């Protein structure tokens, strides 16, 4: 509707314009009218001013005239008065008359003049009066004119006002008419639109009505049909229901009777129930009393039991503590028992071995000396055993293993021996171990100090590599054989992994690999624990599940299959890194694992001891019997000879006495001839000891029987050192790195006795403890202190 609004505004402006125009016109008219009216005033003013000017002028003239007149008249009057004097002087009447006459005439003339003036002035006055009248008339005319003009003005104004009013009204009318017409048009349009809409609505409504009517009819027909069917059905239902009703009525009758009967019965029962109820009530009361009693009892008992419980818990705690103490003590005692067991075992073993060796020695003596046969030292497994049969397998040091492995390159015989010595886990081939170690030696030079490298330069290649390996192991914290094997295994698996996962991302599989390797290692370790412990440990170990085992085996097989493949030098570093990262932890855990106390297995003890007992076989005993017989015969011969010898002795004694005497005699001359000499000792293969002696029997160490062929380790560095002592037996030192000589088993008791005598009571016990702790009294005293014990006889015996 902005157009309509604009039009409206225009219309309005039109009317406004009309009003404005009219106002202007009227203002002009009014202005003109007032001008017309004021013009009269202005004209009157102008006239007045003019009149004043004229009047002033006239007045001035009049005054001038009067003045002139008076002056002239004065002159005349003076003339007349002067003549009066001359007239007085006149004596002649004629003259006097003449003069008087003349004077009279002059006076008359003066008066005449004055009168003339007066009349003039009066004339003027009259004319002024006329003027006044005229002015009055004029004034009235003016007023009339004014009135007329005013009236005309009013009339004009009224007329024009009316006209303007009509015009304005016309304008408004026009405007209104236009507005009306436009509005009417709009209205009509709207009405038409509305009508058409209405018509449409009507038509649609009619259609709808028709539709609805149709629907209604249809529905009506349907409903009628439905109604009839339903009616039929319902009638049937009614019949059925009536029948049922009859039936129900009958049933009802029956039920009523039944119920009446029941009612009667129930009434009676009720009566009974009341009676019973009263009884029960009484009973209930009684029982309540009982219950209360019982409750009090229960409370008491609860209290009692609580106290008891407290006591018992206290007891329990105490007992638990006691139990813990007991356990601790038990553990302690177990340890002590184990210790004592070990000591006793060792003692017994020593004793037994002493006996055995004695027997063997005897055997040997018999063989060599008596029978003259070459004596073969029996080689039994138990001979080597010292202590309880537990750690049969000693763990080799890594460097030693390395040495052994590297030695494989040497001669074939040695290699074979080394191959025997090096018993790697089943799945790892010695060759691959060697290969890997070589690789390590070549590639991990950075782990070795540069100074050392310089030092190693002059050495032989083999030794140099050994030294390098040693250092590398130290850097990697690889101590023993197992670690080496773990390393090798890891390397193998790493390689397998590299090969297997070359296609897909290598790093992704690293963790799983590490886990697998760890599992495998664990598996290996358990396998290495020994057949006896395997079952127990596997049973105890949570991780030793079947699945893991399977995995381990699988890895093992794969490792075996891959062992042949050469390991690339470039992978060594990566593998080393991974190894160091993954195996730092398991290694830390190891001590804990080892702590597990294992039960001792004593199944083989009896066998062992039996074997010790039967160190001399039956045939040999028979030989000994035979020998005994022969020796007895020989003894008879010898006893005869002894008799002879006694004689000889007497003689000799005499001889010695004589010698003594001679000696005394020859006091000043002393010779060392009588000093005993080692080289004169009996024994065909005996050599003078160069390094160590048995303290007991002062026999030198080392024996040709055990030298080298048994494969025992020599007196090289290491934790476990075996010594060949003078009496031809070896003894083992459990602890202590320093090389110390100990008495051999045979002479030990004697030596001990001698020591015990020196030290006082309890020395024997301490000696046994000295073996365990390694702090033997012999250790404290310098080796030179324990010198020769008087065992010449023993030596002489042999």
């Amino acid at each position, binding site marked *: 509707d902005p157009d309509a609004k604009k039009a409206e505004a225009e219309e309005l402006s039109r009317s406004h314009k009309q009003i404005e125009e009219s106002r202007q016109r009227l203002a002009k008219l009014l202005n003109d009218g007032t001008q017309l009216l*004021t013009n009269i005033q*202005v004209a009157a*003013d*102008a006239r*007045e*001013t003019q009149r*004043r000017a004229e009047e002033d002028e006239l007045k001035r003239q009049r005054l001038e005239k009067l003045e002139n007149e008076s002056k002239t008249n004065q002159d005349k009057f003076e003339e007349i008065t002067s003549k009066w004097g001359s007239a007085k002087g006149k004596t002649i009447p004629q003259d006097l008359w003449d003069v008087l006459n003349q004077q009279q005439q002059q006076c008359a003339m003066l008066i005449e003049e004055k009168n003339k003036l007066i009349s003039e002035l009066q004339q003027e006055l009259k004319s002024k009066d006329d003027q*006044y*009248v005229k002015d*009055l008339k004029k004034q009235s005319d003016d007023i009339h004119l004014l009135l007329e003009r005013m009236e005309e003005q009013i009339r004009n104004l009224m007329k024009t006002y009316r006209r303007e009013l009509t015009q304005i009204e016309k304008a408004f009318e026009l405007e209104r008419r236009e507005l009306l017409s436009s509005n009417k048009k709009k209205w009509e349009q709207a009405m038409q639109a509305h009508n058409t809409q209405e018509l449409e609505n009507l038509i649609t409504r009619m259609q709808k009505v028709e539709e609805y009517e149709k629907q209604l009819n249809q529905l009506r027909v349907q409903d009628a049909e439905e109604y009839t069917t339903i009616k039929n059905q319902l009638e049937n239902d009614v019949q059925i229901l009536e029948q049922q009703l009859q039936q129900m009525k009958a049933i009802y009758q029956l039920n009523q009777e039944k119920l009446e009967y029941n009612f009667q019965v129930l009434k009676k029962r009720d009566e009974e129930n009341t009676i019973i109820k009263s009884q029960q009530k009484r009973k209930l009361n009684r029982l309540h009393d009982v219950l209360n009693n019982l409750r009090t009892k229960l409370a008491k008992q609860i209290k009692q039991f609580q106290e008891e419980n407290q006591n018992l818990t206290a007891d329990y705690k105490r007992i638990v503590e006691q139990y813990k103490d007991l356990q601790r003590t038990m553990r302690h005692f177990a340890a002590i028992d184990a210790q004592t067991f070990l000591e006793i075992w060792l003692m017994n073993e020593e004793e037994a071995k002493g006996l055995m060796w004695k027997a063997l020695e005897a055997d040997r003596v018999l063989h060599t000396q008596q029978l003259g046969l070459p004596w073969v030292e029996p080689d039994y497994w138990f001979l080597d055993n010292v202590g309880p049969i537990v750690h049969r397998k000693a763990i080799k040091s890594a460097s030693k293993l390395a040495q052994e492995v590297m030695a494989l390159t040497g001669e074939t015989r040695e290699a074979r021996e080394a191959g025997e010595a090096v018993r790697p886990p089943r799945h790892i081939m010695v060759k691959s171990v060697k290969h890997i170690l070589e690789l390590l030696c070549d590639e991990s030079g950075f782990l070795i100090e540069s100074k050392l490298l310089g030092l190693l330069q002059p050495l032989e290649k083999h030794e140099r590599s050994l030294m390098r390996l040693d250092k590398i192991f130290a850097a990697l914290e690889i101590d023993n054989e197992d670690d080496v094997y773990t390393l090798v295994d890891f390397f193998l698996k790493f390689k397998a992994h590299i090969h297997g996962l070359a296609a897909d991302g290598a790093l992704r599989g690293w963790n799983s690999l590490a886990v697998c390797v760890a599992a495998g290692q664990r598996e290996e370790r358990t396998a290495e624990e020994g057949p006896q412990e395997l079952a127990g440990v596997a049973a105890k170990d949570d991780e030793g599940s079947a699945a893991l085992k399977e995995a381990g085996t699988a890895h093992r097989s794969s490792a075996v299959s891959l062992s042949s493949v050469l390991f690339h030098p470039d992978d060594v570093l990566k593998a080393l890194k991974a190894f160091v990262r993954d195996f730092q932890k398991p290694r830390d855990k190891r001590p804990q694992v080892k702590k597990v106390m294992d039960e001792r297995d004593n199944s083989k003890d009896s066998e062992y001891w039996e074997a010790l007992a039967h160190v001399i076989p039956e045939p040999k005993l028979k030989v000994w019997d035979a020998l005994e017989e022969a020796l007895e015969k020989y003894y008879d011969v010898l006893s005869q000879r002894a008799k002879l010898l006694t004689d000889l002795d007497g003689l000799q004694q005499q001889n010695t006495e004589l010698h003594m005497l001679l000696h005394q005699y020859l006091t000043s001359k002393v010779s060392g001839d009588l000093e005993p000499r080692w080289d004169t000792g009996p024994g065909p293969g005996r050599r003078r000891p160069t390094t160590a002696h048995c303290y007991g029997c002062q026999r030198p160490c080392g024996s040709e029987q055990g030298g080298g062929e048994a494969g025992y380790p020599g007196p090289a560095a290491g934790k476990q050192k075996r010594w060949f002592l003078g009496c031809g037996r070896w003894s083992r030192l459990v602890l202590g790195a320093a090389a110390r000589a100990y008495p051999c088993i045979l002479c030990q008791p004697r030596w001990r006795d001698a020591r015990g005598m020196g030290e006082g009571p309890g020395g024997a016990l301490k000696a046994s403890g000295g073996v365990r702790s390694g702090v033997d009294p012999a250790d404290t005293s310098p080796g030179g202190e324990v010198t020769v014990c008087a065992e010449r006889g023993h030596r002489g015996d042999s």
Partner: protein
Amino acid sequence: MQEPVSGDTNVASPTLKASVVNPAANPRRMRRIIAEDPEWSLAIVPHLSELCLQHIVSNFEKNPVVDHLLPEHQRKVLDRISTGLPLTVTANLISDEGYWKRCCTERWAVCDVSRYGGSWKRMFFERHLENILKYFIPNTTDPNQVLEVIPLCKEYVRKLEIDQFLPPVKLDQNKEEDDMSDSGSDVEFDEFCMNHYDLGVLTAALSHLEELHLTYGVKDCGMNFEWSLFDFTYQDCYSLANAFKKCHTLKVFKLCRSKVDDEKTRVLIRNLLDHPCLVELDLSHNLIRDRGARAIGKLINRSKLEILNLCNNRIRAPGAQAIAHALAKNSTLTSLNLRINCIEDEGGQAIGHALLTNATLTSIHLGGNELSEPTATLFSQVLAQNTVLTSINLACNHIGLVSSFPA
């Protein structure tokens, strides 16, 4: 108003006989309802209150009762009482405008109530007093006539517009005998009795008087003109001046066509100096010259005068200069009329210079003053500088052809 009722009763008795003859003669008898008569009622016997009111109205002069009536009854009473009742009864009793309107319209043909502040009562009393004063002849009319009216009308009169004062007519016979007697004899009579009515008593009594329009002269003398009829004597002047002193409420004072010359002006002005209320002073159509103008100039700055009308006097340049000097320092005067004087260029220029500093004057009329071009040029400057001036009338001057004034 009461005539129909009374007429009814009067008519009733004569129509007793006539009714038989012609019942239709009196149309009122034949009609049951008379719609055009607002007083008509169905009741045959009027109400007692009506009767009472009627009685009150008829005896109002003796016993005026208005205030104790109910408002409707009061209305009725006031509508009915006669306008001819003596003023002593009605003046202070009746304040109803309707009554006074009736009085005015009955007495005068033309009544413009707007000139009297819309109050019919004020109009009545003012015009009544004016009438009395207009036709008061000293020594002939009883002065009590005025004194009696004063207490009645003093509360209501605010404006007195007296356009003629009759001179005393003691020597009527002599005068009639020689109407055209010389002036000498006139002078002799003047000394005794040519004084007009003394307004002193009146102005002192009328406490609300605000406007005073006086003309010492005779109206409509026509051809009976005589100078003696228009004589404003010194005695008159002094008495008028004294009258001012007693009238402190006066705001507007007009003294026109009274032959006021310089001396009389000075006397009047002396009494008007420092008047507390005077706002408008009109001394038009007199004979004031420069000395009188100088006195007026003094008055301008010693009163609150706002409108000053000195048209048609004899003021010349010195007088105009005096007025201009006062105007330059004035801050109250808004309108100044110096029509038909003769101030000429000298006085016109003085006024023009005054208007350069004056900031209150809004309209000035200098028509018919013999002004010419120098004044016109000065006024063009004034118009450029002065922002207060809204209307200047310089009609009937010789300004010249080149004019820089707005119409």
